[in-house]
């Protein structure tokens, strides 16, 4: 009982309603505590010294003057962080990224840190640390990095045979034979697309308070997308017992993938261990830009062929993704998602992971998919134009559906892509007239969605209220969704459930809130935990009524005797059973620990209207519509919120956001003034349309929704701009100077 996760087409009482979130009061009154809002008694202030060079050998670090400064309690260098990675290259790279060892590999790479009694002293101490650098040649751009003559970013890395030394790894996906497919095409378009590096741009900088005691116990308060993952990484890097490190996730002020990686947290703990006092470490915005998680810059070479009647005969893409100095999975994710929306006979993608002297690439919402979608969806748009077909019709004609073998291997189950396209076709937005200098673009996007390790407790209080303890950090209202699910399953009011996020000592392991897994996975374990609790409630009711448990059913939040044989027995409410619990066997609880599987794939279709000023190249989004399959929207307000927020992040990236490096390899715009994310006055309302094609592997049909909304916008905006100005845009962001340059180039012929 309890573990059946197949979709049941039941009627909902709670799921799909829009109650107020349980943490709303705290968050509108300023009482909610985020990473920097917490203090420990006796805490010190931590600060990090960062490399001013894009690439430099660290010949020596003299910390003696800093250590001698009054009020300085610890100075930390890589010498204080022994390599415990034991051959685990991923762990070693994490260690090296947290603090440079022999080589600083990017502008902003941490090289030392201090803990002092106050901010003034800590800042003064940083100035007293003398680092002797030997500056090395650097490379920050893809085109430069993949030349045979490029500076070597990873001096010990072995290149794959025949490939430039800065290509960290390659991976290939696909089926059929694209060359055959291209021969059958009437029109083939081949183009190169570029996207610049963007940052997640969460408003809350990374912040933590760490405390390591001499007896080996430790605690960490931190804003993170996953307390358990941070515990694992910090314990491994510092040689702590996992069970002795208690990590508490604060409220999190945005993450979007950027808070799935440890950055300053191991430093705070190591400083605390050395100083013997708690250390609070809060990054500045400049440090966030220079030292943490941007996404990849990319270059994608695409070739797609179609027949005159709009059938795609083949698709091919070479996907180059930067990963900072540490090869990871970014090119792989680009290569897997590139053609995932389409049902193709011949398709091949190759991912190339390019190492450069830029910060370690981190996950950013549907990591790698938006750039690949930009390339593919742009070419499809152009192909549609060439063959005189409506761009939406071209997509409808080639859309992946149930049974389609995706370009990266798996065969899709029931998916809602076709429904999003149909909804787009019928949407009034598509028929609205356009004004002068305006253009319309459509684009589609895909994200896998994931499950993963998940653990949830459901405890019933003696007053019949329910505490649901989840381990997936609530990044955008998921406590409301989980309360709805528990209330639905138990048949009780929403207000009777309180959902809390556990620290790592209070619950079993939970993977990060990432990959659009939070609501899918934790709602599964919530359903299972509730069902287990219902089993116990039925047993207790049986005892109270003096009848066999098999004669008890749970309905509408009550235990009832089944059939006519016990017709005169009263129904027992959850409250009544809970009240009697001390005498019927003790606490009543349900638990669930699973590796969630069967996250349903997610698809979306976006429609974008822009107006471009041909003189300045300035672009305004004048109308935007997001259509996406949610499987089942548990709390539609927050599903819409994901659609809108993801779309706007994509719009910002499409039009404005980029890391700008100088010739010296230094980041020139590490602040919100020069790295400009969209503000309220830049945007129109963002219309949403939730499609619900149930995920067969979830009792309620739920699919993750968070990632996909950022996938189509780069392409949707680019297609709209290209139509508005009559020139195909192939470089993101389409900032005013790039648009003006493209117009001038077109004029010059």
């Amino acid at each position, binding site marked *: 009982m309890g573990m059946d996760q197949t979709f049941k087409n039941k009627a909902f009482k709670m799921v799909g309603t829009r109650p107020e979130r349980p943490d709303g009061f705290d968050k509108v009154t*300023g009482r909610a505590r985020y990473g920097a809002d917490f203090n420990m008694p006796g805490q010190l202030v931590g600060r990090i010294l960062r490399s001013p060079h894009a690439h430099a050998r660290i010949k020596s670090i003299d910390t003696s003057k800093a250590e001698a400064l009054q009020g300085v309690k610890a100075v930390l260098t890589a010498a204080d962080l022994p390599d415990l990675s034991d051959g685990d290259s991923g762990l070693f790279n994490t260690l090296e990224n947290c603090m440079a060892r022999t080589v600083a590999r990017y502008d902003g790479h941490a090289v030392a840190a201090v803990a002092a009694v106050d901010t003034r002293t800590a800042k003064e101490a940083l100035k007293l640390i003398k680092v002797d650098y030997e500056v090395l040649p650097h490379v920050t751009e893809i085109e430069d990095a993949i030349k045979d003559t490029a500076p070597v970013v990873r001096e010990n890395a072995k290149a794959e045979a025949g490939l430039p030394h800065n290509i960290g790894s390659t991976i290939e996906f696909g089926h059929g034979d694209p060359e055959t497919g291209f021969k059958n095409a009437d029109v083939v378009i081949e183009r190169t697309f570029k996207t610049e590096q963007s940052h997640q741009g969460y*408003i809350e*900088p990374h912040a933590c308070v760490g405390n390591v005691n001499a007896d080996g116990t430790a605690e960490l308060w931190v804003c993170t997308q996953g307390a358990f993952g941070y515990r694992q990484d910090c314990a491994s890097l510092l040689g702590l017992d996992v069970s002795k490190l208690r990590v508490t996730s604060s409220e999190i002020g945005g993450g979007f993938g950027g808070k799935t990686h440890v950055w300053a947290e191991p430093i705070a703990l190591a400083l605390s261990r050395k100083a013997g006092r708690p250390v609070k470490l809060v990054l500045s915005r400049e440090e966030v830009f220079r030292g943490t998680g941007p996404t990849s810059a990319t270059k994608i070479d695409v070739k797609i062929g179609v027949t005159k009647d709009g059938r795609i005969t083949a698709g091919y893409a070479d996907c180059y993704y930067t990963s900072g100095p540490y090869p990871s999975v970014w090119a792989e994710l680009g290569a897997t998602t590139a053609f995932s929306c389409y049902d193709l006979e011949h398709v091949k993608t190759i991912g190339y992971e390019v190492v450069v002297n830029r910060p370690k690439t981190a996950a950013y919402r549907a990591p790698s998919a938006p750039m690949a979608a930009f390339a593919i969806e742009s070419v499809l748009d152009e192909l549609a134009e060439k063959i005189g077909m409506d761009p939406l019709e071209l997509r409808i004609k080639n859309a992946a559906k149930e049974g389609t073998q995706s370009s990266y291997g798996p065969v899709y189950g029931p998916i809602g892509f076709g429904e999003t396209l149909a909804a787009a076709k019928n949407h009034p937005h598509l028929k609205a007239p356009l004004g002068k200098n305006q253009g319309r673009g459509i684009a589609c996007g895909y994200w896998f969605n994931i499950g993963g390790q998940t653990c949830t407790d459901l405890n019933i209080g003696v007053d019949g209220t329910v505490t649901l303890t989840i381990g997936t950090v609530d990044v955008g209202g998921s406590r409301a969704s989980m309360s709805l699910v528990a209330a639905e399953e138990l048949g009780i009011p929403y207000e009777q459930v309180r959902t809390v996020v556990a620290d790592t000592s209070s619950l079993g392991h939970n993977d990060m809130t990432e990959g659009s897994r939070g609501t899918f996975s934790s709602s599964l374990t919530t359903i299972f935990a509730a069902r287990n609790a219902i089993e116990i409630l039925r047993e207790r009711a049986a005892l109270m009524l003096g009848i066999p448990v098999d004669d008890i059913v749970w309905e509408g939040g009550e235990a009832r005797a089944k059939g006519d044989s016990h017709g005169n027995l009263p129904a027992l409410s959850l409250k009544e059973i809970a009240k009697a619990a001390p005498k019927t066997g003790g606490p009543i609880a349900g638990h669930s620990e699973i590796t969630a599987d069967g996250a349903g794939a997610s698809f979306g279709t976006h429609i974008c209207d822009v107006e471009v000023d041909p003189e300045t190249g300035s672009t305004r989004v004048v109308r935007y519509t997001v259509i996406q399959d949610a499987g089942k929207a548990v709390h539609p307000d927050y599903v819409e*919120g994901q659609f809108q*927020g993801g779309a*706007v992040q994509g719009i910002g990236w499409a039009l404005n956001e980029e890391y700008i490096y100088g010739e010296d390899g230094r980041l020139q715009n590490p602040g919100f*003034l020069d790295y400009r994310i969209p503000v309220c006055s830049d945007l129109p*309302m963002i219309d949403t349309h939730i499609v619900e094609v149930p995920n067969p592997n979830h009792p309620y049909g739920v699919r993750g929704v968070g990632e996909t909304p950022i996938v189509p916008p780069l392409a949707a905006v680019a297609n709209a701009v290209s139509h508005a100005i009559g020139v195909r845009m192939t470089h993101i962001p389409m900032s005013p100077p790039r648009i003006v340059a493209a117009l001038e180039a077109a004029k010059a012929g």
Partner: protein
Amino acid sequence: MSGIAVTTTINGDTVEFLCQAEETLLDVLRNRLGMTGAKEGCGTGDCGACSVVVDGRLVCSCLVLGAEAEGRKIETIEGIADGDTLHPLQEKFIEHAALQCGVCTPGFLVAAKDLLERNPDPTEEEIRFGLAGNLCRCTGYDKIVRAVQDAAKEMRGA
């Protein structure tokens, strides 16, 4: 260590504190007075998460020195609700799901309250420009604008 003695009024209460010359009003609020509702998102006046009102003027408290608070009247997010009774803007932000992570919310509420006090019946465009000094990365602003529109309507008794 020497400090500057400051007497000021915060949310109607007289408050005294010592601060160093380089400390911002935001540092003082958060680190010396335990008022952590205002957030530091950038420290350079670009994100608005630290918005407060000083003598009736909306400012980024990261751009005001603590010492400048002397003799002023400061209003923060902590003073917006009347005891346990939320301000209509606070209620509408919750009702419209105008927050996801919520870290920008205090700044938006302070700025929106200031906006509606100056302009009780703003157009959508006036709301968008009135709140353009506050960054939100989660919502795309749609539900924030709707919450402010609805709160303005309620406050006008419309």
